[in-house]
């Protein structure tokens, strides 16, 4: 009786059995790598905006307080995106002929808002409140990164649940004194472990990790 399979089939079989194991491992690593990459998470990817607004210039070099524009951050869940009028408080006086700022002036004339491209967005099934984090001593840069060094704004953290939980499980590693919350150049002290534990106690910070804390 003639052979059904060629001799080489033995090799092919062995290679495909072990090869598929290797391929499966490689695939899981590739998927893991992809899910952690900026391609998927959008971290460190500066976004083009209708006007190339620079936080480095305004918050870093000029030292304008975060709350000058993000007015509702201390009272509300939403920090607030400033209306065109806020821009015009200065730009009606300076750089009034700048071509770069023409969209701002156009918006002011027409009353139609600038359509900023959102950089940090949480899904709708997550409840997040800025004010409580501010009041418990979580600084702007803890989540938003080195904002004073961003010419165009980018997302500094993944905003994934594991990242949220990293702080919710160990707030003492991230908390800072309340008077430093809006300091974009704040660096945690060497004794953060001591200071953090003390602030957690003083500000009565709870480690809230119930599902319903955020998924209400």
């Amino acid at each position, binding site marked *: 009786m003639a052979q059904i*399979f060629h001799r080489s089939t033995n090799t092919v079989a062995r290679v495909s059995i072990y090869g598929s194991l290797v391929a499966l491992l490689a695939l899981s690593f590739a998927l893991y790598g992809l899910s952690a990459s900026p391609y998927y998470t959008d971290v460190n990817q500066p976004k083009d905006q209708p006007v190339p607004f620079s936080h480095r210039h305004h918050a870093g070099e000029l030292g304008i307080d975060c709350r000058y524009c993000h007015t509702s951050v201390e009272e509300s869940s939403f920090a607030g995106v400033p209306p065109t009028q806020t821009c015009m408080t200065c730009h009606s006086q300076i750089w009034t002929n700048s071509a770069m700022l023409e969209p701002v002036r156009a918006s002011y004339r027409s009353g139609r808002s600038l359509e900023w491209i959102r950089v940090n967005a949480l899904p709708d099934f997550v409840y997040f409140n800025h004010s409580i984090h501010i009041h418990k001593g979580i600084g702007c840069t803890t989540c938003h990164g080195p904002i004073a060094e961003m010419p165009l704004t980018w997302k500094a953290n*993944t905003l994934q649940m*594991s990242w949220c939980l990293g702080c919710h499980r160990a707030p003492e590693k991230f908390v800072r004194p309340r008077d430093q919350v809006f300091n974009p150049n704040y660096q945690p002290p060497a004794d953060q472990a001591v200071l953090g534990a003390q602030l957690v106690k003083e500000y009565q910070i709870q480690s809230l990790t119930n599902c319903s804390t955020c998924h209400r």
Partner: protein
Amino acid sequence: MSASHTPPIIEPGYTFASVSDKISSIILGRRTPRWWWLGLAVSISILMVFNLAVTYLLARGVGIWGINIPVGWGFAIINFVWWIGIGHAGTLISAILLLLRQKWRTSINRFAEAMTIFAVACAGAFPLLHMGRPWLFYWLMPYPNTMGTWPQFRSPLVWDVFAVSTYATVSLMFWFVGMVPDLATLRDRAKNRLAQVVYGFLAMGWRGSAVHWHRYETASLLLAGLATPLVVSVHTVVSFDFAIGIEAGWHATIFPPYFVAGAIYSGFAMVMTLSIPLRKLYQLEDFITMRHLDNMAKVMLATGLIVAYGYMMETFMAFYSGDTYEKFMILNRMTGPYRNFYWTLILCNVLLPQVLWLRRVRSSVPMLFVMSLVVNTGMWLERFIIVVTSLHRDFLPSSWGMYYPTRWDWATYLGTLGLFFTLMFLFLRFLPVIAIAEMRGLVPAGSGGKKE
């Protein structure tokens, strides 16, 4: 019972060659019988109903089912438990009876294992569909994820995931490994090229050398050793889905043994339901003899009695505990709005199967077939009663309600029967329905044997 009256496990007059001929000719030899086409057509039509029901479910969500508060677990869980229970007979036959050297298992183990795998496939569909968003099923697996959380390991539903996926994997391996020598037989006997290549591929280069047989025997025993605890553990974990919940009618220590016995009970009933038409249609009465049917009937009788003891103890404990809710639950089962289901269940699972004590019944094929259907029905009703009556009137009378399955519930349930029988018909046509190599082992010594 004297030995002379015991029917043999294989009729006399067979040789190695004639056993191989008879079983492999089902696949290779004769023309595909007309009843097979008819059966497959009917099964596939029902499978299409399943596809329709699932498609509509994915489009609209689980609201199309009759589930709601207070009965959040309706048909999905009833059918899951029913199917997974049916699978247990296959594992019992292939693993425990192999280790116990019960030779009569030989001719029924292959299709009982197939039944297990197909039943697990049907069972697995229900929790997946009940999730509402089945495409996120992988959230049930512990893997490093962006949520920074693990599944809730304290929940028996998570234990279920491991129990059932282990069960499916081991059953599939056991089935396939056991089939390799037979696939080689088919490869060697096949005339057309396609069949040779396909069976040859599946036979994985089996040459029947002494080394191959040695490894085959070792692998079978190892897999049997792995599968044996599963017979007990899988349905124990399934019973924990209920027993861990603090709900009258669920929170009982008797649940694990009572569920395992019920699983084997319904599983043997299903093996009987399948084997009776099978032996008739393929003229396999010489291989699946009256001895097999008699033994299966006895297993059903024994496990049925354990199940009956379970019902009795549930009732007894309700009153003995003095717990108001337990007492109310049992009275509600017996006299509440679902009382007809309860008493039909008692009739099907406890009263009618007592006829199996009579040898006259055990040697009557039609009677056994009817009894197997009765037990299948009874075991389905048992799960209905456990799930629905405990939930529909629990601690808070203001939230009492009724559970009515919708047409989509029925379409999904009947649809899985379509899935099951489609797979079964394909199996009958393309794979050896009886283990050829093992049957050859029964030939020399006839009804007894010195070799496995």
